[in-house]
């Protein structure tokens, strides 16, 4: 039963992969510099690494907004967010999972009578605005720099594009890594207090309880990328403004820098140590940041290039997402509580021990099950990648053979 509750989180992870994660490679795929298959494989690996290695920082911020104290509540929150993100994705509107989960937490707070921490909420909402602005501010100088290099170096166009392609793959992987680090809190953050799994030793590294959940969430995101992100990638990459390959690389690089800045605990403590204002570790929307970056380049190149109608649709989606998720969560909590008699959470009184803590799962059977599940999925992923590699190699060999045959026949 306890693992069944996790499925809504996995569904949300899948939705995140289908939607937000596509931003890492959307511009590259949209500009046809990187094939969707290559992009999906690299993004999947990077997003899992980011989630496992650097995912804890932003989870704490979400916890401050509303500490969901029953696993039934976590399940409902994740489900309502996932449904909203899925529907928005189905309509090809790049939507933010962060906004969905924040809307859901507010919905839970309203239902259980808990107070929404205004300071945390305002920090998160401000980051939604500062994220895209920062994206544009990063993108414009980077774009100016790259176009100047291209103009002055006299480098061969094909060689330049080859460098850009390599750059797109590296920055795309970095963006996917940052996305995993920044957004895994949306997927698994609400489940963290409910699980206390035994440490999983993978030989080179060992994963603690939350890292195992992050790994599972990362795999769900990867599945979303592989199975459903193609359509949104094309919207992001090709519809808002026609992107040249170098602009595509700048967009991805600027986006990943912004995401990294908002999820790096080391950078935050470094700034604090230097006496500067520290950056809040907030899960921000990669969709919003990427739109900011694309818009920044669009403004630099001349406003004529920008598809304002589509931007308007996306903007409407941003406002609608938290509102819809909040209402949907409230209604779902009411439904699950009264129809199935599931504990969805309680009002937290100051100084009292949270009843959610009593529900923590420590069963070793669950830990074993999780271990086999994760190892099985990782092995399956490895074989799928190997299969595609062999397929690709055979295709190239076949082409070579047909080419040799062609010239032989001509002679």
């Amino acid at each position, binding site marked *: 039963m306890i693992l069944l509750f996790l499925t809504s989180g996995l569904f949300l992870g899948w939705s995140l992969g289908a939607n937000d994660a596509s931003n890492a490679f959307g511009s590259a795929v949209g*500009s*046809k*510099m*990187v*094939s969707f298959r290559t992009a999906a494989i690299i993004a999947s690996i990077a997003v899992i690494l980011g989630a496992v290695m650097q995912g804890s920082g932003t989870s704490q911020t979400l916890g401050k907004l509303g500490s969901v104290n029953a696993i039934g509540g976590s399940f409902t929150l994740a489900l309502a967010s996932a449904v909203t993100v899925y529907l928005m994705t189905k309509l090809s509107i790049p939507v933010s999972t962060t906004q969905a989960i924040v809307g859901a937490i507010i919905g839970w707070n309203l239902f259980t009578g808990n107070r929404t921490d205004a300071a945390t909420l305002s920090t998160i909402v401000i980051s939604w605005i500062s994220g895209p602005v920062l994206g544009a501010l990063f993108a414009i100088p980077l774009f100016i720099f790259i176009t100047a290099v291209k*103009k002055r170096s*006299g*480098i*061969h*166009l*094909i*060689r330049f*594009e*080859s460098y850009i*392609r*390599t750059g797109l793959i590296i920055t795309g992987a970095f963006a996917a890594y940052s996305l995993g680090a920044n957004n895994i809190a949306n997927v698994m953050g609400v489940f963290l207090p409910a699980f206390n799994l035994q440490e999983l030793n993978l030989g080179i590294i060992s994963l603690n309880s939350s890292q195992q959940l992050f790994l599972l969430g990362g795999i769900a995101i990867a599945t979303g990328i592989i199975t459903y992100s193609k359509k949104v990638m094309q919207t992001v990459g090709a519809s808002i403004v026609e992107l*040249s*390959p170098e602009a595509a690389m700048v967009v991805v690089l600027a986006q990943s820098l912004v995401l990294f800045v908002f999820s790096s605990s080391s950078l935050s403590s470094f700034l604090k140590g230097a006496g500067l204002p520290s950056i809040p570790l907030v899960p921000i929307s990669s969709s919003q940041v990427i739109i900011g970056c694309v818009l920044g380049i669009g403004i630099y190149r001349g406003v004529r290039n920008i598809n304002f109608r589509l931007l308007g649709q996306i903007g409407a989606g941003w406002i609608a997402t938290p509102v819809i998720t909040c209402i949907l969560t409230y209604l779902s909590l009411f439904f699950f509580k009264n129809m199935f008699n599931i504990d969805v959470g309680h009002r937290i009184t100051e100084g009292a021990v949270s009843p959610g803590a009593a529900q923590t799962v420590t069963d070793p059977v669950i830990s074993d099950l999780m271990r086999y599940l994760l190892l099985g999925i990782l092995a399956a992923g490895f074989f799928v990648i190997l299969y595609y590699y062999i397929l690709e190699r055979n295709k*190239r060999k076949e*082409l070579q053979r047909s*080419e040799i045959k062609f*010239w032989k026949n001509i002679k």
Partner: protein
Amino acid sequence: MALFTRTTKNLIIKIEEFFDNVEIGILVFREGIKSYLINNREDFVRHLQKVDALESNADKLQREIENDMITNSILPQHREEVTKLIDQLDEIIDSVKSSLNDFNIELPEIPSALNNDILDLTEVSSNAAEELIPAARAYFRAPYTVREKLLKVYYFETETDKISKGIKKQIFQQMPELDLAHKAHLRYILHHIENISDIAQKAADLLSAMAIKVIT
């Protein structure tokens, strides 16, 4: 990453080799016509064979370039135009080859009074095609300079038209000793030589648009 570098390097070499082929093909064409006009049959055949080999190599390179660009998804946004440009440059060397072949098969009788004019026409028409090659090379390295390089192509194409018109006038209005079939044959031969600059102009139009697209 190493794979990308190798593919890129090979493709650049192939494109450069293709341009070299076309450039040499034009030079050989010029020399071939000269040999024909001075009745040096041996040289003419040698030039014809050389053009044949160059044309066949250009065809092979063209196909390899297209294959490499498609299979490795190189220059996805400009691929269509680049392959079209390569195709039009290939048309120049095709036209050069077919002209020399026509000379070889039909053995047109050219009145000696027209020798210098036809040499001029060949020179100017070849110049138009020759000036296209540096512009095509510049597209890949300095697209900002393409349009200024193309000015010469347009100039030589106009000159070709003028010279050709003059020769045709001379054939049809000032040479009553030639019969109509002979005149028509000479016009056909002139059209072949002229055609090279026409193809060059068409390629220049395409290249000019391509350069703007790369710059903006």
